[in-house]
């Protein structure tokens, strides 16, 4: 297990070292207006939504599923909240808006769960429905406009600080809760069992349908909270761009973290590392000044390298060589 996390950890360290070499001030931290300020803090703040969505995605993938609709769900959450807040500046309206949005997201998760567990539709197809339609719903809610709000309590979710960014504190709290709920009880093992063989686990008495249903609802609620962070960070709901392609980032984070898309065993720490790698990569591009024309190629090379060294054959070759070195 430790060996699995070694390569993502090395990749993350390598990216950070690259930043340190090119811009030594990257690691500089100072207190600004009562909170930490610096490049690393930005990575944590901007990586929080990806981490949260990747957490939900990890559990979905562990059941041998996938949820492509998370980006659209995030957009809906931001849109509903901002439309509800409107021109109001008080905390009550903000919390009511966020509550409505999250309940709606849970309903969308139920819908995904219904398609996958209830009707037995392939997860990739079932969630594709909401991926396309969901953004349309968000556009309808905002009437195609960018809704700008001026509400301080809402601003705190994505842009606020309690020494550290509030958004990363929320994501880490969810990570802690998931770790407790799945590793300290049998839930984690049941999820893995469903992923390895849904039919066998059902025959063994595991309520696989309920479990599948639960992970999709959880993924949708995570996406909803992430959507609140994204729109709160700029105090605006942008139905077209909020959470665009974030499902791909989340899936990538899960895969980099060593969880197999074939279901079964999953790693929450791996997902945390994966999400951090992806955000560090984006921040690195801006910090070291990679030209926009080659940004995608740069990112692709890093991702391919990380995936390659994790491939079983590459790992076997690498460990064989190191053993030989150790012997000689």
């Amino acid at each position, binding site marked *: 297990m430790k060996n699995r996390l070694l390569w993502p950890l090395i990749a993350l360290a390598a990216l950070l070292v690259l930043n340190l070499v090119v811009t030594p001030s*990257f690691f500089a931290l100072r207190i600004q*207006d009562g909170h930490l300020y610096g490049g690393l803090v930005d990575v944590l703040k901007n990586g929080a939504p990806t981490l949260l969505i990747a957490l939900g995605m990890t559990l979905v993938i562990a059941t041998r599923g996938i949820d492509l609709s998370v980006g659209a769900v995030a957009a809906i959450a931001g849109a509903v909240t901002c439309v509800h807040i409107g021109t109001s500046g008080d905390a009550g309206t903000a919390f009511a808006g966020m509550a409505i949005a999250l309940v709606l997201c849970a309903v969308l998760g139920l819908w995904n769960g219904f398609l996958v567990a209830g009707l037995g539709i392939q997860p990739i197809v079932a969630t594709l429905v909401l991926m396309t339609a969901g953004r349309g719903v968000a556009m309808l809610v905002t009437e195609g406009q*960018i809704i700008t709000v001026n509400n301080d309590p809402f601003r705190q979710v994505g842009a606020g600080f309690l020494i550290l960014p509030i958004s990363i504190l929320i994501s880490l709290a969810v990570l802690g809760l998931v770790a407790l709920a799945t590793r300290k009880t049998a839930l984690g093992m049941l999820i893995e069992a469903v992923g390895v063989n849904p039919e066998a686990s059902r025959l063994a008495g595991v309520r696989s349908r309920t479990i599948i249903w639960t992970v999709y609802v959880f993924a949708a609620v995570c996406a909803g909270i992430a959507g609140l962070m994204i729109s709160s960070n*700029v105090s605006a709901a*942008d139905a077209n761009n909020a959470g665009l392609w974030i499902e791909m980032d989340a899936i990538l984070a899960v895969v980099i973290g060593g969880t197999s898309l074939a279901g079964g065993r999953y790693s929450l720490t791996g997902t945390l590392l994966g999400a951090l790698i992806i955000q560090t990569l984006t921040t690195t591009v801006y910090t070291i000044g990679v030209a926009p024309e080659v940004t995608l190629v740069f990112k692709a090379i890093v991702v391919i390298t990380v995936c390659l060294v994790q491939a079983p054959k590459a790992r076997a070759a690498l460990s064989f060589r190191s053993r030989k070195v150790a012997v000689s």
Partner: protein
Amino acid sequence: MLKKITTAASVIALFALTACGSGSGGGTATSGDTITMGFAQVGAESGWRTANTKSVQDEAKAAGIDLKFSDAQQKQENQIKAIRTYIQQKVSVIAFSPVVETGWDTVLLEAKRANIPVILTDRAIDSDDTSLYKTFLGSDFVEEGRKAGDWMVANATGPTNVVELQGTTGAAPAIDRKKGFEEKIASKPDIKIVASQTGDFTRSGGKQVMEAFLKSQPKIDVVYAHNDDMGLGAIEAIKAAGKVPGKDIKIITVDAVKDGMTALANGEINFIVECNPLLGKQLMDLAKKVVKGEQVPARVVTEEGTFTQEQAKAALPNRQY
């Protein structure tokens, strides 16, 4: 052989067209000459774009043109799909704002073969074959960049470090606004662009890039953002860094949408170059002419100005978008 097939195909297409025409001619008097327009919009990536969309939709209704509207969500493949659908539906005219500059020859050739005139709005394409479209209606982005550069040159005191927030990589406004700006500041070696990254024309993009710039660049005097939304994102990042936008770091943007104008009037932005999205009326007039077969100029430029903070305060109450 190929020629024969194409001729045959166009004869069939022509036959189908006349059949359609005579069919609707039997209905009410007006429906016979109703123009249908297929409009493939880039997306709704900014307040500017939604104002542009609204203008096209409202003016089409006012002009009695049947509008088929599609939103490409900033993806070229979606736009190509939409244009192909319009060709199959045999609309009278296709109008679109190309997401990026290149890669349009094949699909526009299909439209040309189907005898459907094409009007480009807002953004140009990069193609040697100018017969692929009838006219290009839109702003002169290079000129917008020059206006921003002029203000920079006139207001710079001493060495000035500029960071640039570019639009979507490869998009015409991003390329041209960069070009025009660089052209003008070239005369003053004191003014330097020290960093330039894409913020994808969005607020989150502008904020994230600006956050990184604030850490990696020791001295930033001016932000030049290719649209208001990225500028608004940059304002948030500058505030979080404990600096005052508009004073410690000056901000120049392009577009002049309502949120941008509000920030300008509040002193958080220093100068905005206008890019007028309300081109619906001009577009409908051109479409009518093109469908009738009248000659239209190959390039129609929309009228635009610039705003300082004082001008913004005066103009803000009457701003439509």
